[in-house]
Every structure is written in structure tokens, then in C-alpha cells.
């Protein structure tokens, strides 16, 4: 019978391999799967390509993973935020690669990857420096750029409540990229504040159906990035 719940965050990320592409849920700290990220640091996988809107803040969560030298390349829309110092330092010294993608194109590329769409056209970035490398094409008198679907080996995301089939609901603006990343990754790993028994989630309100989820781990009282940063915590 289907039970996607695993026993620990360590078990949840055990098979992330060197060189993997990992999508990490979250916009700023909202939806950032801190505990899974710290488990990934402990696990040791390196040379990762990470997809996230930002690059983390302070020296916890995603920023800690970057600081630990595990990330070869970031694909994101906004790599500098308040309290974000780790990425800028590595980037300026040429020790991390950056693929900058407009936020909406990034979101749609991830959805396309998950939906089996290899490419689509978007008006975003036409005539800007970020047009570089993209085919331009005219439809109905307007110019658009070709953007490619984006997939990943793993997605690590944070939900509010999940069940054993991997159905997930989210908390407020912590939803952001997570439902898209769950679709786009070969293996999707969800940390949720509660894992409830089957049938407790109303089928009408499920945001991520379990078909997109491979593993669920309960992290009952997850850390908040801003609180850790304010407390001066540095992971590793």
C-alpha cells in the first residue's frame, strides 16, 4: 500500500547525488524548507545546480548550502536580498555560476518542465539584455522569446499539511514555487508541519496532488529563516 512518509530528513535526502539539479521551494524565507536544506548539507552532495527565486539569507538554509560550497550554479531571478552576503561574495570571486531568469519566466519554465512542454514563447525580456541566447519570434505583430521547460532531479519543498499519498496544502505565500517544482522534479521531497491520515484533506482544496510527490517528512515546528538570522545562527 502507498505510504510516502519517511522517518527522517536524513532519509528523505539520502539519494541526492553529486551534480544533481535541485529545485528548492520558497520565495525569501516563505516556504524555505530549512530542515531539508540542513539535512542536504549534512548529507554531503556537491556540485549541485540549485533552482530558487533567491539565494537565501544569513548563513542558514539555502545560504548555508551555498556557503558550504555545494552549489556550482544558481538559477534564480533575484540573487541579492537583505542579509544575503554568501552568494554575492562567491559570485564576485567567480566561484559560483548564475543563470538569471525573470521571475515569471522562471515560474513558467518550471511549470512547463512539469507539464511536458519543452518550450513556450513569452513577451518578457524582449529587447533587454536577458534576451541574449533566446530565439525571437513574432506572433500577431508582437515579439516574443522562446523559453525552455526546466526540470530537476530533486525538489525539496515545504508544505503545511500532507498525507501518506503525498497530497499537500501550503501556508499562505509559502506556496509560491513549490507546487510547480513538485511537478518538475523526478523526485519530490516534502517537509510538512503535519502529516495526516488519508481522507483528512478535502479533495477540493489539495494544491499538490500526491502524484507529484515521492516522499513526505513531518517537521512539526519548522524553523523560520528570519528568526535564525536574527539570532545570529550559522549552520555549520
Amino acid at each position, binding site marked *: 500500500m*502507498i505510504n510516502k512518509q519517511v522517518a527522517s530528513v536524513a532519509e528523505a535526502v539520502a539519494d541526492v547525488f553529486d551534480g544533481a539539479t535541485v529545485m528548492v521551494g520558497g520565495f525569501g524565507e516563505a516556504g524555505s524548507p530549512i530542515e531539508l536544506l540542513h539535512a542536504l548539507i549534512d548529507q554531503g552532495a556537491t556540485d549541485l545546480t540549485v533552482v530558487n527565486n533567491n539565494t537565501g539569507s544569513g548563513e542558514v538554509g539555502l545560504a548555508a548550502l551555498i556557503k558550504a560550497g555545494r552549489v556550482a550554479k544558481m538559477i534564480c531571478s533575484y540573487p541579492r536580498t537583505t542579509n544575503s552576503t554568501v552568494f554575492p561574495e562567491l559570485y564576485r570571486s567567480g566561484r559560483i555560476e548564475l543563470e538569471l531568469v525573470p521571475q515569471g519566466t522562471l515560474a513558467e519554465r518550471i*511549470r512547463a518542465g512539469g507539464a511536458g512542454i519543452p518550450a513556450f514563447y513569452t513577451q518578457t525580456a524582449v529587447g533587454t539584455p536577458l534576451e541574449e541566447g533566446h530565439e525571437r519570434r513574432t506572433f500577431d505583430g508582437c515579439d516574443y522569446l522562446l523559453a525552455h521547460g526546466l526540470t530537476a532531479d530533486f525538489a525539496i519543498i515545504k508544505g503545511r499539511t500532507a*498525507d501518506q499519498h503525498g497530497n499537500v496544502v501550503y501556508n499562505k505565500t509559502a506556496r509560491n514555487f513549490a507546487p510547480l517544482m513538485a511537478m518538475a522534479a523526478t523526485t519530490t521531497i516534502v517537509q510538512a508541519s503535519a502529516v495526516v491520515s*488519508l*481522507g483528512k484533506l478535502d479533495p477540493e482544496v489539495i494544491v499538490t*496532488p500526491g*502524484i507529484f510527490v515521492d516522499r513526505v517528512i513531518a517537521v512539526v515546528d519548522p524553523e523560520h529563516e528570519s528568526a535564525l538570522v536574527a539570532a545570529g545562527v550559522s549552520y555549520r
Partner: protein
Amino acid sequence: MTDQPQQIGLTRDAMAQRVALDIRDGAYVNLGIGIPELVAKYVPEGREVIYHTENGLLGMGPSPEPGHGDPELINAGKRQVTANPGAAFFHHADSFAMIRGGHLDLCVLGALQVAANGDLANWSTGGPDAIPAVGGAMDLVAGVKTIYVITQHCTKKGDPKLVGACGYPLTGLGVVDRVYTDLAVIDITDRGFQLVELSPGVSFDYVQERTGAPLIAVGGAPVIGSTEP
């Protein structure tokens, strides 16, 4: 397995039962309209299979008790169904993202013709007076990882449905993995149709005579129901 000594070949239910044996525990499965719908009844004990219907439900359950249905809880064949615990509703773009994105493990479909290279024709006879209607068939065969076909081996007129090349309009190119008929289980391989199992009382030659392309025999194909896959 249902025993039908009066006829040669499996009944529709026996064919569905044979397909069900090949569905693994935990699989996400879409069942086409018609004979494929019967498969759900025969999934062996101890296996949990999650059924997807492309009109927006994962975790589809059986038909409702009389008087307990909702005309707005239906399957792709527009028949009333139920939702199992753990089910989820979603809109059509999300539903076909599951299909097109390769998230479903298996789709079981009917067929008009299957070619030795895996081409499938199951949506139109191409007749001049036919109303063309494709539904989700082309999306399913293009997107789902594994495509099983369940069909009578021959048409009512006795013409082979397993053919060298499809004469009817195609649903998809090289998409079929395995065919379950009343006479045999046949894989689509790089070399063409390859016999996997024969129905009870059916010989290789009997099947080959009713197949429109060469049938490859590998070792002694077991009789359906004689082994426990």
C-alpha cells in the same frame, strides 16, 4: 480466472483480469473507456492503485450506490464515479500536465488497430460520414510512460487488429508497449510483435493466422493463468 470452455479465447473480464495482474502496487493509472474500465475490478489484493480520470480527479473510486451519485462527479466516459480517501480534484490543465508531463505510470486503452512498430489507431475509422472525435487519447499515448492496449484480437468481421501498418488514422506513433487480446499477450519490440502468453487452448499458429504481421515466439510462451506474474 473466469473459465469459458464453450469459446476460444478469453472473455472481456478475463482479459481485464490478466491486465490487472501487470499493474504494480502504487501505480498511477488511467483507464480508457470501455473494456479498460473493467480492469479496476481485478487488481489483486494487497495492491493499491490510484486511478486518474482526465476530467480532473486522481483517486477515482467505483460507481456510486444507486441514488448516491453526483452528476458532477463523473469519469472521462461521463459516468458517475466516486472519490476514494486521498483523492484530489483539479482543473483540466493540471490534469493534462500529469499526462503530458509523464507522471502517470500506465494507461490502458482500447484499439481499432495496433501496428507491429507500436503505432496505435483508436480514435477514428476515417469514414467520410464519421464525426471526428479524439478526446484525450492522443494526449494519453503521447504522455503516459507505459501504454497497454486491451482489445479483441480480431474485428467482428474477423480482420486482424494487430497489423503491419495501421490503415486507420493514427492516435500516436510507436506508443504501444503491450497488447492484451482474447487470444494472447503480445509485446511490441524492436523486432515487432513478440508473443508473451497464449490463452488456454490457443496455439501459436492460431494466433499467427489471425495477426496481420509476423509474430515472434521466444521459448515456449506460457498459457495465460498458468503462472503467477
